[in-house]
């Protein structure tokens, strides 16, 4: 006896987006979340909605997703606080300027024109207060940022309005394949459905192994800082060619500082600890690029747990080992922008057997035979 048409393991952004995309097409969905919806990366994310600088394989998905972002509030009937305030990547040396040119040439050669080169004057106009060392960079006008937890809840609530069931506090212990059905054994009993989706984020590797698709993944704690509120002065989200930086002003006026510095994951407790050498380096980057930030109070530092892969792009697509199972996890710290489209892709795969977008690069078995094991200490 099936509990649903599709069981989705994981109640983060990607699980909730898949749930919404399936439920709105009249599919009966059950989401199993071991903690609460949006517990880890989906609420710890800095919220960048960014196409700028994406891996070439992700660009078609990111282009499709931005279309969805621009009408997401209407689609979901909720405010995700998406603002198309742009994304900028700053170059501070001639070499970095050359790298910007090469990058924009690459995206053009692939047929995209969203990334544009900007000179120093344009950069200063877009990012007032930036240090004199900044020489120019890349700008994507229609990118922006949104509120990750609100976005996740918006997908969840929209999915529930379409009949999806979201069960929190249900941890998956084992998964068995029976005739034409998946049996998901949890600490709250057994659930069955003919189709299974693995959207378990940093824990997606464990779920993939239960399905029969062992893959290299590693949980990583990405650190962030947020400051006291400031009166509005920064429009676009600012990244850097040469430094680890993601810097934006949130809707509330706080400055959100990220960029990929890592803390430590404690897997048993699902807690993280901060690495102060990394936070210091992050604060130095901000102090140097934005000298007026030095006297602003830091209000909060945290690290969110996110799944990483050896090639820094996610696993998306059907299981190799078993029929009627699909993966969508380990987004390597840049899955927020892709949330709307990847949920739609997963729904297409389940309902139509194929997606109109190219997802070959994300296939679950791409490391098979390569001997790739995840090296947890690699840093970007």
């Amino acid at each position, binding site marked *: 006896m099936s509990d649903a048409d599709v069981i989705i393991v994981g109640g983060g952004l990607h699980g909730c987006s898949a749930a919404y995309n399936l439920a709105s097409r009249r599919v009966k969905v059950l989401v199993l979340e071991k903690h609460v919806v949006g517990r880890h990366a989906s609420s710890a994310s800095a919220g960048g909605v960014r196409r700028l600088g994406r891996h070439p394989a992700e660009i078609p998905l990111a282009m499709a997703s931005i279309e969805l972002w621009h009408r997401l509030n209407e689609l979901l009937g909720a405010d995700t606080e998406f603002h198309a305030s742009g994304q900028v990547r700053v170059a501070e040396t001639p070499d970095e300027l050359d790298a910007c040119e090469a990058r924009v040439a690459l995206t053009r050669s692939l047929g995209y024109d969203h990334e544009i080169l900007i000179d120093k004057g344009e950069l200063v106009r877009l990012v007032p207060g930036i240090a004199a060392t900044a020489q120019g960079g890349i700008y994507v006008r229609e990118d922006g940022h949104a509120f990750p937890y609100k976005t996740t809840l918006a997908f*969840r609530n929209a999915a529930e309005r379409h009949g999806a069931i979201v069960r929190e506090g249900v941890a998956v212990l084992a998964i068995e394949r029976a005739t034409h059905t998946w049996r998901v054994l949890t600490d709250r009993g057994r659930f069955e459905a003919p189709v299974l989706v693995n959207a378990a984020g940093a824990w997606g590797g464990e779920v993939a192994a239960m399905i029969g698709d062992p893959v290299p993944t590693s949980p990583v704690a990405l650190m962030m800082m947020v400051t006291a509120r400031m009166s509005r002065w920064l429009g676009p989200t600012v990244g850097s060619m040469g430094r680890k930086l993601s810097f934006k002003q949130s809707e509330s006026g706080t400055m959100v500082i990220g960029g990929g510095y890592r803390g430590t994951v404690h897997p048993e407790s699902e807690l993280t600890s901060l690495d102060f050498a990394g936070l210091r380096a992050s604060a130095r980057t901000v102090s140097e690029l934005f000298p007026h930030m030095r006297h602003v109070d830091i209000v909060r530092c945290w690290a969110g747990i996110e799944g990483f892969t050896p090639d820094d792009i996610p696993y998306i697509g059907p299981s190799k080992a078993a029929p009627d199972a699909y993966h969508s996890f380990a987004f390597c710290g840049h899955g927020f922008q892709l949330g709307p489209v990847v949920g739609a892709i997963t729904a297409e795969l389940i309902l139509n057997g194929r997606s109109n977008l190219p997802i070959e690069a994300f296939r679950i078995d791409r490391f098979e035979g390569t001997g790739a094991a995840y090296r947890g200490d690699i840093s970007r």
Partner: protein
Amino acid sequence: MSPQYDLAIVGGGPAGMAAAVRAAAFGLHTVLFDEQPAPGGQIYRAIEAVAGGRPQDLPILGPEYRRGIALVEAFRKCDATYCPGTSVWQLTRELELGIVDAGGARMVHARHVLLATGALERPVPFPGWTLPGVMTAGAAQGLLKASGMLPDVPVVFYGGGPLLYQFAWQLAQAGVPVAAILDTGRRANYVAAAPYLPAALAAGDYVAKGLRLLNGIRRHRIPIMRGVSDFQALGNDRVREVAYRQGGTTHHMAAGLVLVHAGVVANCQLTQSVPCRHEWYGPQRAWRPVTDPWGNTDLAGIQVAGDCGGIGGADAAVHAGRIAAFEAARRLGRLSGDQRDTLAHPDRLAWRRHLLARPFLDALYPPSPGTLAPDDATLICRCEEVTAGAIRAAVRLGGTGPNQVKSYTRAGMGPCQGRECGLTVTEIIAAERGLAPEAVGTYRIRPPIKPLTVGQMAGLDDATR
């Protein structure tokens, strides 16, 4: 990084000072970080300055304040390193402390950490609690201790608990007009507390002190209203009057200054941030760290003493500080278990005797129902201006716990790190979901616990790493 200190103590109140004196006597390389400019904590704040420079304030502050003089003298004489004006903004389970002082921010490492961070006044949300002219009784008392500041307008006291009455008496002694004490306490509290009275009488002079205080207040003819509810502070630019219900009718009263107090709760921001294990203490509806009788938390090397481990008062805190120091000395190899037991015995007896007063006081002064369940329009998170109604709405949208409500509403995301709203948010969610507060939990507390600028963080000294 190798430890620079055997023992790092956080907080310069009675527990921290008493612990430092004992620990240093055992030859432990001890440091005490104190965010105040001088030792004494909140209870004995500025005691040296008052005793030395403003002795006329001593009679106003009363005989209990005077007890701090000997404690501070002993602390000043001991070999512990004293770091005043130094905030601890971070503690890790590896026993690294992030500190910040006038010279900037840095990390230090200790072999053992004792937290003696004291108590916080319980936040008391009501309509108008953010108006200028409304402050906590403890904050106003701090101003009196630190700089002899006294109000010069009619004062209305609201809430309950010993400190409310103590400060009303102190103000009256100083000649400040006290318009009224509006006490939320009900007759039922006396009934609930009565069974614990014999134990409280055995604990020392707690009950006698309370009766002396009440008599003193009567001598000053300060009106006391009991069973007060639906309290509001009113005024456009600042508080002008208060409104409240008592005996079935609504009353209004002019007020220049409203001083609020509803008891104190353990200041467990640091233990929560690590995080150590905490438990919900039902009688006072607040969190406290789970400890063994020696103040050890569930995490090795992190100990608590005094009110930050659960409210016991200043006299109990002195003994708790000493007990913790004996245990720290044992853990650091200076004492055997037997030696610790023998040395700590008198303090353990005294400590337990002081704690006999708590069940009585806890039952007599529970937080009022209105404090636990403010109406929808009342602001709960002052930093981010989030109302009780917004919190309830977030719960209905799927925000099942304090961290989800925080993510959704920003409640608890401001500079105070949820000190002002954490307990209320837990209570509101618990009531909304029909769960016990311990099942709802509390905010994950994120460093920095104390303010730190981007520049200070950027200049972190890493010579110790």
